[in-house]
């Protein structure tokens, strides 16, 4: 008897689902049918593979609060109600105690040790101090571009030839500067100033390094001559975050770290003033921390981040930075933790973690597109300090007010995009987005692998079926040429430009531009030009293994866009559905914040995160200076740790100043700081100003607002993950406690998920 290969019994037999009687009959038939036997084997193989594949699908978890509800309901039905409540509370307490126990061993012991110690050689250190040849010196307002085009080779050897040298010995620098080595790290002095006696040996003068990093030589003379010249130095400044466009970035990010170490360690890279002091040893990295540079996982790459140091208010009363709404770092960290790994420290950018979450700041009133919210209270990780929260909420736009969209999806379909968390996830994400499009909108899809091709010419947004069918047919194959794809995408966007609408190219990739035009400066320039013409770029990063975090962040920053990392369908839903308007519709561009601290109240301060967003004080009022963009309904949050006046700044500090004005100034209405905030409307060239005064509520952190507590939780977690030199008493228990206390309504469960991640990090670091 021949067995019909379409008979479901075949599968049932292969899977062991036939009853004993049926099985016997079937086996008899099978004995005479080799084709059926082979088919059974194949079913079993497919079943095994399918099982394996499905097994590895991630399992979500309930929120701790939900589990507590379950335990609460567990009480036998006959128990009186009052007792039941009590038992439930007990269960909750038990759970918390358990969690605390799990988390006791904090991260800070394990991180440094595991790292490979690497300190770079003397020769490489010198690169940092040797300015590029005269001909390549960039002009004032093209620093970024110029930094990109500066050839890499000088710095490149730093990667290839790391020398284990715990205490590098420095030769004299090529100028009148003197370099000393203290505790294995390099310090740059201004010899003139240190000899004038005003400064302690551990004070860092950043004159020389900032002059190099921010080459602005107004008189056009050579850099060496400029090292000593006040005129040139006063103008030495960064037009933008230096790490996003450092010299030799095309040669890899690692060399930047080494080349920049002396300057970066002073924290003054971001500071225009030469005479500013940096207090504490903190900006100097411990030896173990040097290793970060080499620990980029696989071929993933992260630009190094150096924590902001404390600044003394009398030296540096202004803190200035561009706001940022990127969220990629948080979802990337989550990906690591869910994979049972601690993230590399340079993958941890605290501002992106903070801004992943939305906060309940009061909505803007009237026609103002923004509201500014400030709050101050006890600093949870250092009770002697204060923590100030500066929050910004952008006006949301209703569906009716929503401008028409002209979206061009630029999708990487190269071979590296095959894994389920790349192209297949992009396709799922796009399927979520498509139903939201209407007849006023336009969509096109450009794909690139070896060649770029327009997969979907600009199509009206309500033709969902047509759009979806193109999405369904996308397949990953071949090499990558990101540049050509970008040009095609911009062409599509220009051809279908909607005046008064949102014109945006959305790049979906793992960031691996590995074939063809990989000249980043060309690419960056194109993106900047297009942003100027009204076509913005968003970058969505997918997948893992060769995630080029730094490249993608840079591209998005230059394109007035934002960068999100999408690790699963939930994240896609957050970015493309729940927060689609804030992702896609920019309500303000070049958003900058400046805080002026009152020395009568504040001794020193430090900005937590935003290292890559620092601006020179005078850039704040300079409307030509580019900064971050903000989408509809977005909230942005920044935290300052504040050392109150009279409080010792602590640790190897700074000698008292002899020549500075007396400190006893009257307090201005008890104000600690004034927060100033500038933005431009998306199509405007002139900026608007908002200000708010920061006063101390005197609140203990436990009585502060939910948002304050939660933001502090995020900062704490970030500092622990970064093993920040500024983390003080931060630990995972504190992060968890803050996160739990500040959970608030948490409608989307993001804050609960955060608490879960903190817990997971605790388990991993045991």
């Amino acid at each position, binding site marked *: 008897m021949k067995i019909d290969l379409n008979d*479901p*019994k*075949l*599968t*049932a037999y292969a*899977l062991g*689902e036939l009853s004993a009687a049926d099985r016997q009959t079937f086996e008899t038939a099978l004995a005479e049918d080799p084709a059926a036997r082979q088919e059974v084997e*194949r079913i079993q*193989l*497919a*079943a095994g*593979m*399918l*099982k394996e*594949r*499905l*097994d*590895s*699908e*991630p*399992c*979500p*978890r*309930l*929120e701790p609060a*939900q*589990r507590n*509800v*379950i*335990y609460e*309901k*567990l*009480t*036998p*039905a006959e128990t009186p109600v009052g007792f039941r409540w009590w038992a439930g509370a007990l269960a909750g307490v*038990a759970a918390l105690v358990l969690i605390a126990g799990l988390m006791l061993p904090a991260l800070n012991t394990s991180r440094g040790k*595991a790292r*490979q110690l690497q300190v770079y050689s003397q020769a490489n250190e010198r690169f940092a101090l040797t300015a590029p040849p005269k001909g390549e010196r960039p002009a004032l307002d093209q620093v970024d571009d110029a930094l990109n085009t500066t050839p890499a080779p000088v710095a490149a050897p730093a990667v290839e030839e790391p020398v284990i040298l715990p205490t590098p010995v420095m030769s004299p620098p090529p100028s009148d500067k003197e370099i000393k080595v203290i505790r294995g790290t390099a310090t740059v002095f201004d010899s003139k100033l240190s000899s004038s006696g005003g400064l302690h040996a551990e004070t860092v003068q950043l004159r020389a390094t900032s002059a190099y990093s921010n080459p602005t030589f107004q008189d056009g003379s050579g850099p060496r001559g400029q090292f000593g010249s006040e005129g040139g130095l006063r103008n030495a400044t960064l037009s933008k975050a230096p790490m996003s466009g450092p010299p030799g970035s095309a040669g890899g990010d690692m060399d930047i770290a080494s080349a920049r170490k002396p300057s970066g360690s002073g924290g003054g890279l971001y500071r225009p003033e030469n005479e500013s002091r940096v207090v504490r040893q903190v900006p100097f990295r411990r030896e173990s921390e040097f290793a970060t540079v080499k*620990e980029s*996982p*696989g*071929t993933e790459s992260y630009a190094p981040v150096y924590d902001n140091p404390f600044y003394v208010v009398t030296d540096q009363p202004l803190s200035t930075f561009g706001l940022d709404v990127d969220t990629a770092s948080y979802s990337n960290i989550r990906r*690591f933790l869910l994979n049972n*790994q601690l993230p*590399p420290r340079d993958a941890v950018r605290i501002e992106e973690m903070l801004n992943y979450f939305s906060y309940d700041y009061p909505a803007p009133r009237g026609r103002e597109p923004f509201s500014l919210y400030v709050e101050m209270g006890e600093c949870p990780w250092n009770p002697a300090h204060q923590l100030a929260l500066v929050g910004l909420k952008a006006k949301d736009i209703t569906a009716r007010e929503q401008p028409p969209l002209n979206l061009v999806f630029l999708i990487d379909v190269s071979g590296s995009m*095959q*894994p*389920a968390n790349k192209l*297949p996830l992009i396709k799922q994400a796009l399927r979520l987005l498509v139903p939201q499009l209407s007849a006023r909108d336009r969509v096109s899809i450009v794909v690139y692998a070896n060649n770029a091709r327009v997969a979907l010419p600009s199509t009206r947004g309500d033709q969902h079926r047509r759009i979806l*069918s193109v999405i*369904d*047919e996308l*397949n990953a194959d071949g090499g990558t040429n990101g540049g050509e794809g970008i040009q095609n995408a911009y062409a599509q966007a220009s051809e279908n430009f909607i005046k008064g609408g949102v014109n945006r190219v959305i790049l979906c990739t793992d960031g691996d531009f590995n074939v063809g035009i990989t000249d980043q400066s060309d690419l960056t320039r194109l993106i900047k030009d297009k942003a100027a013409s009204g076509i913005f770029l968003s970058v969505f990063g997918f997948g*893992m*293994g*060769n995630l080029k975090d730094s490249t993608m962040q840079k591209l998005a920053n230059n394109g007035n866009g934002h960068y999100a990392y999408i690790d699963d369908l*939930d994240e896609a*839903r957050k970015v493309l559905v729940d927060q689609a308007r804030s992702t896609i519709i920019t309500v303000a561009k070049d958003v900058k914040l400046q805080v002026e601290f009152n020395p009568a109240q504040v001794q020193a301060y430090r900005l937590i995160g935003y290292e890559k967003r620092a601006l020179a004080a005078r850039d704040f009022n300079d409307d030509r200076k580019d900064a971050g963009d903000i989408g509809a309904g977005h909230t942005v949050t920044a935290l300052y740790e504040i050392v109150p006046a009279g409080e010792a700044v602590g640790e190897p500090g700074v000698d008292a100043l002899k020549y500075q004005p007396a400190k006893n100034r009257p307090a201005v209405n008890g104000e600690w700081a004034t927060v100033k905030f500038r933005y431009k409307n998306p199509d405007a060239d002139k900026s608007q100003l908002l200000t708010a005064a920061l006063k101390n509520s005197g609140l203990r952190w436990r009585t502060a607002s939910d948002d304050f507590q939660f933001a502090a939780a995020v900062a704490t977690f970030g500092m622990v993950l970064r093993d920040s030199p500024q983390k003080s008493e931060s630990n995972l228990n504190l992060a968890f406690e803050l996160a739990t206390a500040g959970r608030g309504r948490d409608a*989307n*469960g993001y804050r609960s998920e955060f608490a879960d991640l903190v817990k997971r990090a605790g388990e991993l670091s045991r």
Partner: protein
Amino acid sequence: MQADENWMRSVLREHEGPLLRYAMRLTGSLDRARDVVQDTFVKLCREQSREGLNSHLPAWLFTVCRNHALDLLRKEGRLTALTDAELAAHPSPEPTPAAQAADREAEADVLRALEGLPANQAEVIRLKFQNGFSYREISRVTKLSESNVGFLIHTGLKTMRQRVRALDSRTGFQPVHSRKNEQDARSTEGERP
């Protein structure tokens, strides 16, 4: 009291994840899935005959979970392709020739193929291969007849094998995906000593 809690703790540990995964497929969102699974366990708390349940606890949980999920969707008026009648009628998206060719690429993705199946086939296939239920248990959970379950699994598996070469190698087992996974694993191992 303590014994009860320990019992619930172990039940949660074992089943919470798989139930959430299942509920997410049904409801399309993690938030809804969490609500549904919470309700499922709350119902388990009220169940008096725990001992009687033990042997078929997983199937019981999945059945309750599925009912809660469908209730929720019905309440929200979002129940679209999930009633049994509609499930059967839900058309399998016929892959274009280009897609077919690509799907036969060695590394075409199994999950993608699974998602390309009609929802009822995908559901029973998951229950079978992801949750390890027997035909009979699946029949209880989904309220489909056992032979219907057998048919759906047979058909779904066959379609997947046609669309994904890796699932149906005629020249012996070629674990293309596991090779890829090893690569991934290697690169992630390298991330952190």
